[in-house]
């Protein structure tokens, strides 16, 4: 049984006048110890999917139908207690913006202890502090005592991101959800953070869902990748296979348009714009931009097909 399974999830956002049909029949599976990537352009629903798993969507977001199964239990129907237990002790999430994820008016100490109180029961303040120090040391922050006494603005971007990772890992005993864990970080610092995540996830034997629009990062960090376009999953494949031999026209275009280092070449890009979620195109949501669109694409949502690579 997979650790986490999302089945046929539909999520809408509502404004005063409109309904935005964002996630459309999304299914995703994460096994024990597996690192899964989720790629797609901005606005494709990657973050919405992660937030739906923990049911922390903003108030205008609504899960319409579908199932989120945690070791077989549907979290959408589970009691509040059970869900809170999962949020506190099983799943950790690294949010996109490290500055936004930390409260500017509280010391790091207070914020970490707040997390720890929820994920570890009944320790003394001293024990919590010791644990916090250990967590910070695990993410290679030098001088954890000083960091604990600092406010977020006194730390550099890389350090803040390490703090956020430490907090996410504190509550992650089974699964880490990493939403663009290195945006706004410099390349050399990003490299350090990725290595750190890899190491810690490996050490604790966690599963991970890594969300990013940086293809290289996903290629490096994951076993299997889901590609999202306009709120739908268009392709799923083992990472190496996906980058070597993408099948869906969208994936192929996405990979082809990314500028490369080894060769001076610019891809064609993808013509047109992502669809309006108020009136998503019928059939395959990619068909208005797809160079290989056929008549059937405009009418019917394509079924999920299993592709078996044939050795030649």
């Amino acid at each position, binding site marked *: 049984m997979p650790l986490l399974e999302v089945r046929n999830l539909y999520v809408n956002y509502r404004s005063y006048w409109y309904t935005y049909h964002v996630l459309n029949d999304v299914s995703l599976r994460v096994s024990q110890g597996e690192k899964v990537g989720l790629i797609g*352009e*901005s606005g494709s629903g990657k973050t919405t999917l992660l937030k739906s798993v923990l049911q922390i969507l903003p108030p205008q977001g609504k899960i319409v139908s579908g199932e989120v199964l945690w070791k077989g239990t549907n979290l959408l129907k589970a009691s509040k207690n059970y869900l809170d237990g999962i949020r506190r002790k099983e799943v950790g999430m690294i949010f996109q913006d490290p500055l936004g994820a930390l409260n500017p008016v509280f010391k790091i100490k207070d914020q970490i202890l707040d997390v720890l109180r929820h994920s570890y029961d009944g320790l003394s303040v001293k024990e919590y502090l010791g644990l916090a120090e250990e967590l910070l040391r695990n993410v290679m922050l030098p001088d954890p005592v000083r960091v604990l006494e600092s406010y977020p603005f006194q730390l*550099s*971007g*890389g*350090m803040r991101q390490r703090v956020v990772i430490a907090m996410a890992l504190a509550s992650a005993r089974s699964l880490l959800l990493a939403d663009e864990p290195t945006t706004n970080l*410099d*390349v*050399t*610092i*990003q*490299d*350090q953070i*990725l*290595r750190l995540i890899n190491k810690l996830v490996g050490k604790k034997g966690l599963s991970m869902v890594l969300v990013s*629009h*940086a*293809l*290289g*990062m*996903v*290629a*490096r*960090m994951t076993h299997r990748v889901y590609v999202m376009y306009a709120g739908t999953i268009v392709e799923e494949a083992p990472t190496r296979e996906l*980058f*070597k031999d993408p099948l869906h026209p969208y994936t192929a*275009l*996405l*990979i082809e*348009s*990314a*500028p*490369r*280092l*080894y*060769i*001076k*070449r*610019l*891809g*064609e*890009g*993808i013509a047109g*714009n992502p669809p309006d979620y108020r009136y998503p195109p019928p059939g395959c949501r990619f068909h208005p931009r797809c160079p290989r669109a056929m008549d059937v694409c405009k009418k019917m949502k394509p079924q999920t097909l299993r592709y078996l690579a044939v050795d030649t």
Partner: protein
Amino acid sequence: MLAEDNPNWGLETLLVVRNLKKHFNTPRGIVRAVDDVSFFMTTGETLALVGESGSGKTTTAHVIMGFYTPTEGSVIYKGTDIDIPIEKRPLWLKKEIQIVLQDLATSLNPKKTIKEIIEAAVKVHGWSRKIERLERVLELMDYLGLPEEYLFKRPTEIGGGEKQLVALARALAVGPTILILDEPTSALDVSAQSRVLKTLLKIQKDRGVSYLLITHDLSVVRNISRRVIIMYLGKICEVADTEEFFSKPAHPYTQMLLSSIPTMSEEDERILPKKIESRGEIPSAINPPPGCRFHTRCPYAMEICKKREPPALNIGSSQHLVYCWLYSQGNT
């Protein structure tokens, strides 16, 4: 690098930046944002200024634009010193050096239509009749592939790539010789990115505009620039032709930077240098380390690196400069 080292000096050297320093006084001390930087640019080329945050690349560009006056050193454009604040610059100079700013959300007025945004630039720079101005705006939009119906849209209604094209149209409206591009694609998705980059290449081919490209994305550098300058904490580390930069990166920082890029294919992986594990934090520009500024993170740091600043050393071709003691004869 001194301009005189350029074999084509005088012929087509457009811009020379010589021993430029820009320091800012803050309550916590002097921030040495740009500290003794020299380089040149020739007509029609794309020069990339690459570095991480705090390297001084944007400050350098802003000094060239006249947003800041240099603390020391000079900026020479077509043989004249242009150390003039932007508000005192003559119109011809403002026309010839233009900038496309990094943050499109704040550099395009959300309350104006695309027409008004582009027209403002056209108007300031001499087209006085309304019909002429409109023609000019339409011509620019057509040239950059923006559909006519965008005239009356506002920046919030169009995509990121298109916003970037509008900003480009505004800059091109006055016929610049040098266009400074500050992170032109950092906020864009891959497909919008390749559209913007292609447009940039087209503009350069048609109009011979020189680009000073400020970026941290080396795949962008690979695709549109001819030469690269790597900066770290207000100093230049390495200057090289793009080809040579990727095939023979010399400075340890450059190597660390290159080997930190996550790649998605074996072909990309192959051209990157042997892994130098990135370590340490980027120090503050307030009290930068003495000697070579990179020595605190450099795996090859020697005693001399902590004490003396490395000079510019020529390696390989005459265009390839590296500021590193490792390449100095007496210290190997």
